[in-house]
């Protein structure tokens, strides 16, 4: 967190660029994380139809442990 000391001297234009870049990183990371949670907790073979029930059955015990609905 305190690595900002190196960046405080940056001019406003620079900090705006950092902010825009960070926003894109944040959105991309959130999307990937959400997709992972969906695949593990919600998907019933309809995310990638080719996976069928394999993904569901592989994460079966994890679903039960974390309290996600399962069949």
């Amino acid at each position, binding site marked *: *967190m*305190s*690595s*900002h*000391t190196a*960046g*405080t001297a940056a001019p406003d234009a620079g*900090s705006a660029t*950092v*902010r825009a870049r*960070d926003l894109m*990183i*944040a959105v991309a*990371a*959130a999307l*990937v*994380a*959400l997709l*992972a*949670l969906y*695949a*593990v*907790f*919600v998907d*019933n073979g309809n995310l990638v139809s080719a996976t069928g*029930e*394999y993904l569901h*059955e*592989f*994460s*079966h*015990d*994890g*679903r*039960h*442990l*974390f*309290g*996600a*609905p*399962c*069949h």
Partner: protein
Amino acid sequence: MSDNSTPVQAPTPLPLLPVLGRGVLAGGAAGLVTGLFALLLAEPLMDKAIVAEEKRAAAEEAAAGHVHAAEEELFTRGTQHFGLVVTAVVVGLAVGVFFALVHAAVHRGRPAEGDGPWRRALLLAGAGFLALSLLPGLRYPANPPGVGDGGTVSERQALWVAALAVGVLGTVLAWQVQLRLARAGFGAPVRHTAAAGAVVLTVVALFLLPSNPDPVPVAPTLLWDFRVLSLAGHAVLWACLGGVFGALGLGRTSKTG
């Protein structure tokens, strides 16, 4: 979460990537610890529940007068045990990403001093446990294998996601209430009581959601033990996530400052 000692100034954007890296590292470690914890303590219960389910299914079929061959399973129980650990790591990584993003958004432009990174991380982990584990878990507690009708799974998923959303909204409400009261000059007793009121309100809102429609044909002791272990697994995940994330932040502070 209110560092009102910091003088008001244009918030300097802290680079996001190092925070995200801490979140991923802490989340992966927390997921692995949770997975091993569950493998050791919860798996024996899940195996027991599956054996009981198979016996129940066999007895029902015998009573109905026709006997099927045992249901073909995609994976052996051994593979599913391994899957539990992998799933826990994936969940830990994903939760770690969101943890880092929320942490960065809440504390944007206000670097922590001293043991601040540790306190902030533990506080956020506690909030995460309340919002995503304890509150939704009170309404829809975890069930062992053998519970859950395939026909109601979409309905139960909608209810579960709704409970997660209500848990998050209620926790944000409690935080905002105490923050605004602090800005208005109220002392800790008033702030904390008001925040507790917001949490109680959230519990009431959760119980306005429809109940889980499925029957739970499981022995009470097995059910209780499994639910306690499930909640303990959640607690292990959040505690490790907050602890590792906070410790990594401390390391940075002591090195640079």
